[in-house]
């Protein structure tokens, strides 16, 4: 039994990062109890939320939000987008400004309904909540793109928020919203689409700013602590990258007569060490020892107990 898949180092690194996040959540809690709080730098895109909603109110036009495309069910990215939209909806509710949330999948739609309804109820404005303002549009990518673009054009949205997972439709949304003069705040967890948003939107949250948003907006200790923990993780990764760069640079200068075959070190003709054989690369990419794998021998189950389609057999 070995960690042949992920390697012990990858596992350890993950656990260290998890411990960083928990430690800082606890730190933030204790700071909060003492009346102080941890520092978060300014994020322009999030400061623009109030401005965008205020402008929509002045113009009497709706605020349109899209929590991205997610796989067949809700995921952490769409949930984070909805967290940000809860704040946007709260601001809009205070100004009695209409909102529109366009959902790509039914799971997100269901959760969005509940979250936004709760926001209105918390603000004591439950009667102003319009269930039709949260809409399921389509779970076909380009049908969704066409549907949302149509809504932007027909409703002439004054402010648009595109946050979460976006793919090819990002530019369609951004350019359509631009054509009706909407102020746009956007963020895509998909790196490929971020340049499109940068080219076409007013404010863009890049990379993990998207995950920092709820901490920035609510200043809740759990979220702030987790954000600081994320920064510790980044420092750890930076150190690891630095170590890796120095290690590989140094090791490839060396000559060796040892090489690897089937997960074992063997004698080979003298050669310059390959990056793949360096310590840091071996830590992150363990090579399963085929002899160890072959040495694992198991007894067979009685035929009447075999109910699982496993290697060597077929399904039905």
């Amino acid at each position: 039994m070995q960690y042949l898949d992920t390697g012990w180092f990858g596992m350890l690194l993950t656990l260290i990062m998890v411990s960083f996040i928990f430690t800082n959540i606890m730190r933030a809690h204790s700071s909060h109890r003492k009346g102080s709080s941890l520092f978060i730098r300014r994020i322009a895109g999030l400061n623009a939320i109030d401005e965008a909603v205020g402008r929509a109110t002045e113009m009497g036009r709706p605020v349109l939000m899209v929590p991205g495309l997610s796989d067949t069910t809700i995921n952490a990215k769409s949930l984070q987008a909805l967290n940000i939209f809860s704040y946007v909806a709260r601001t809009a509710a205070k100004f009695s400004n209409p909102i529109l949330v366009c959902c790509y999948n039914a799971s997100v739609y269901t959760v969005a309904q509940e979250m936004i309804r709760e926001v209105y109820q918390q603000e004591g404005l439950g009667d102003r909540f319009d269930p039709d303002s949260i809409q399921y549009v389509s779970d076909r990518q380009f049908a969704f793109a066409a549907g949302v673009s149509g809504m932007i054009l027909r409703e002439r949205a004054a402010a648009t928020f595109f946050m979460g997972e976006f793919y090819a439709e990002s530019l369609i949304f951004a350019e359509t919203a631009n054509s009706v003069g909407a102020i746009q705040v956007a963020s895509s967890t998909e790196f490929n689409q971020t340049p499109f948003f940068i080219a076409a939107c007013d404010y863009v949250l890049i990379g993990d700013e998207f995950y920092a948003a709820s901490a920035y907006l609510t200043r809740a200790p759990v979220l702030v602590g987790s954000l600081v923990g994320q920064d510790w993780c980044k420092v750890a990764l930076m150190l690891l990258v630095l170590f890796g760069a120095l290690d590989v640079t140094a090791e490839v200068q060396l000559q060796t007569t040892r090489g690897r075959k089937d997960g074992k070190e063997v004698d080979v003709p003298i050669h310059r060490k390959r990056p793949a054989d360096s310590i840091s690369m071996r830590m992150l990419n363990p090579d399963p020892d085929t002899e160890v794998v072959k040495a694992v021998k198991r007894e067979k189950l009685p035929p009447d107990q075999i109910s699982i389609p496993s290697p060597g057999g077929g399904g039905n």
Partner: protein
Amino acid sequence: MSIGEKLQSLPKWILFLCLIVTASVLQFFNIPLPNKPQDPAIDYYAFAMSIPPGSTVLVSSDWTNSTHGESGPQFDALMRILMRRNIKFAVYTTADGQAPQVAKDEIRRLNEQRVKDGERPYRPFEDYVMVGYFPSAEGENLAMSINLRSAFAGKKDFPEGAKEPVDIWQSPVLKDIKDISDVKALFLISASNTDQIIIERLAAKVPLVYAVTGISAPQNFNYYSSGQLKGLVGGLKGIYDLEYLMTSGVNHPGADGKIAVASTRVPGDVPPLPGRNQGLGTAYFPTLHAALALMILAIIIGNVGMFMARKAQGASK
């Protein structure tokens, strides 16, 4: 409105009309263009050509008609290589319910072309199997990494002429496969986020070779440069490179004795593929050129307009 201001705010319809004209007109001409294939495409071709004939590979066909312009020729080129080299393949998708049908239609079309060209048709079930669609990319690719047999359990496909579908594990394509590590490679043609998911779940288990859309290419270049991808074809330029390599080979002397594509990345001579190699990639490439040229022209016009307007403003002050 001054000329500078006009140049800065050209109506969108003018830009769009220019693009329609440029993109459409060039489709009617066959213009041979000089090319210098990039390293990721060279590695893609060399790796595909190094797979032993008769072995089995997986093809994750995660594209539909929306990205036919890029993914279609990528799929065609891969199929041509696999079919000509008698490599068996199993096609599955975790991206879109339509994808298996799109792949099936494409294979049927290529098979018709093969028959016309005097090549043997690739037989369903014997030479390739259609595994089908799995709705959860994360779940399925994770399941494949743990136990390929149970991940593909219960899937059936039609042997040629059969009226009833048969379990895919009885197919010669998969019968000797116990685990994902028995598969020689996983080829991905993706217009979706499955490129990231497959890297996360399967990179340590099976050699990965990707063909992705132009937009996804930069992100995947990361995995190529780190060695997690054995080869990468990105967008139309990538497919043009691949079709070019299929015709010229790598480090391979042509009829005139000259080596059309030389690369130190690939040891030895990787021969070209005999037969029809140039497809939609070659046909669409001139259009890409013209569209990019139009984009550069539009950027220049916008900037010239801006400078003219600034100059006029400066003069009026």
